[in-house]
């Protein structure tokens, strides 16, 4: 792994028009191919931080201090896949459009690349023959299309804003597996935002815990989870409700 970070966030401060500080003086850096988790509850500023990295702050929020430095492009996967897709445009067409503009290829090549991407993300082959609207796909399939849209930009950094929160557990598992294997294959770095510590722990090598716009604790995933210094981190750890171990299949028959 090269030592030069692909993304540096230095004492970033975001504030609302009313001068209320929403994100206060946070700093982190991301190395090539690394996954970093931002965890915290609603209102902790984790999504705003992602949007600041992308340069897509919502109206009324301004960057009042600090800097975001990045040499590579980034793309985002949003929480609500149906909200992120154009409901009036079939998905292959949507994806081909992004490929056409971002990768500067011909229309025909764009379509081929789009179909390859969709196949890689495990969408049904029938899309080759008949394009479908987002409403004709399931939530999990829509999220795969959204991930394909992000990857069509060939990002150096993939920003994920609670990409599995709106999905069922089995679908969540598939999406996480997909993201992990794509990361191995394509080598992008990732910032993963979630309130579920268990998901973040499985995906990320480093965690940053955010509360009310500030980073209260950060560190290597395992050591952070084993020796949390801040009571808030401990509370988040405790909030992952425990399940007993499943007995192995066949041990009962």
């Amino acid at each position, binding site marked *: 792994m090269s030592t030069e970070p692909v993304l540096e966030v230095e004492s970033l401060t975001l504030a609302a028009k009313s001068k209320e500080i929403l994100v206060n003086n946070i700093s982190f850096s991301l190395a090539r191919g690394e996954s970093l988790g931002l965890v915290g*509850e*609603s209102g902790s500023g984790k999504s705003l931080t992602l949007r600041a990295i992308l340069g897509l702050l919502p109206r009324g929020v301004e960057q009042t201090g600090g800097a975001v430095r990045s040499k590579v492009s980034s793309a985002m996967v949003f929480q609500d896949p149906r909200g992120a897709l154009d409901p009036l445009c079939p998905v292959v067409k949507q994806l081909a459009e992004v490929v056409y503009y971002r990768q500067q290829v011909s229309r025909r090549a764009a379509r081929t690349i789009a179909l390859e991407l969709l196949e890689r993300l495990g969408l049904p082959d029938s899309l080759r023959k008949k394009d479908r609207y987002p409403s004709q796909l399931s*939530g999990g399939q829509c999220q795969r299309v959204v991930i394909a849209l992000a990857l069509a930009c060939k990002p150096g950094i993939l920003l994920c804003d609670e990409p599995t929160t709106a999905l*069922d*557990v*089995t*679908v*969540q*598992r598939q999406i*996480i597996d997909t993201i992990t294997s794509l990361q191995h294959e394509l080598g992008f770095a990732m910032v993963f935002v979630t*309130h*579920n*510590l*268990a*998901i973040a*722990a*499985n995906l990320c090598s480093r965690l940053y815990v955010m509360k009310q716009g500030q980073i209260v604790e950060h560190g290597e*995933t*395992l050591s952070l*989870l084993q020796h949390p210094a801040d009571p808030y981190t401990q*509370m*988040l*750890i*405790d*909030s*992952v*409700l*425990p*399940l*007993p*171990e*499943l*007995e192995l*299949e066949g041990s*009962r028959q």
Partner: protein
Amino acid sequence: MDLALQVRDLTVRYGGFTALDHIQLDLEQHTTLGLVGESGSGKSTLARVIAGLIAPDEGQILLGSQELRKKRSREQHKKIQMIFQNPDASLNPKHSIRQILSEALLFHRIVDRSQVETRSKELLSRVQLEARSLDKYPHEFSGGQRQRIAIARALSVEPSLLIADEPTSALDVSVQRSVLELFHTLKAELNLTVLFISHDLGVIHAVSDTVAVMRQGKLVEINTKDQFFVRPEHEYSRELLSAVPKMPQ
């Protein structure tokens, strides 16, 4: 054990789509049944049919020994109360907490008009809210507090069955924990019978005595909590359980 609720061969169709397919379910008195399933599996439809919000196409529902028909009496309506996922949508924003609580108390003639204030305060303390909250409006509370008010309202009419449809899914994890603890205390204090619906298996594990799993309108497994989480009988239950993200050890 006495059965609080029996569901016999219940079928509901929306047009050509079968939302509930011959559901058989027994709920013992003073226990909590956790109902799990993915979106579209029919959990909420089942809850709504039991609460009388949707009329079934076939089948029978017995509350205690009484059959619940399409037209229910005021008394029958009172006995089944429901808590919804989103407390923002289930509390009238233009009513103060006093109005929200007293409306149910007066409609079902639980107490005399003169007693309403005392009873409302009792209910609030039961869900760990201060008595002076009575004159506030829903928007002045946090999401978790609003869900507590919805719980207080459901409990105010002394129902024999409480249906909770994803009551913690819209809440932050720390708040979820305190609401679950409240369910725990209430269950112990009031001997409640609860049908608790959730897609979150961790939540189900924390509250249930029995677990029922639904998939595509069918009930695929009913088992005791201890059996279900360690030795599920159905393939699909196993799939669900193994998909839950776990903390690394």
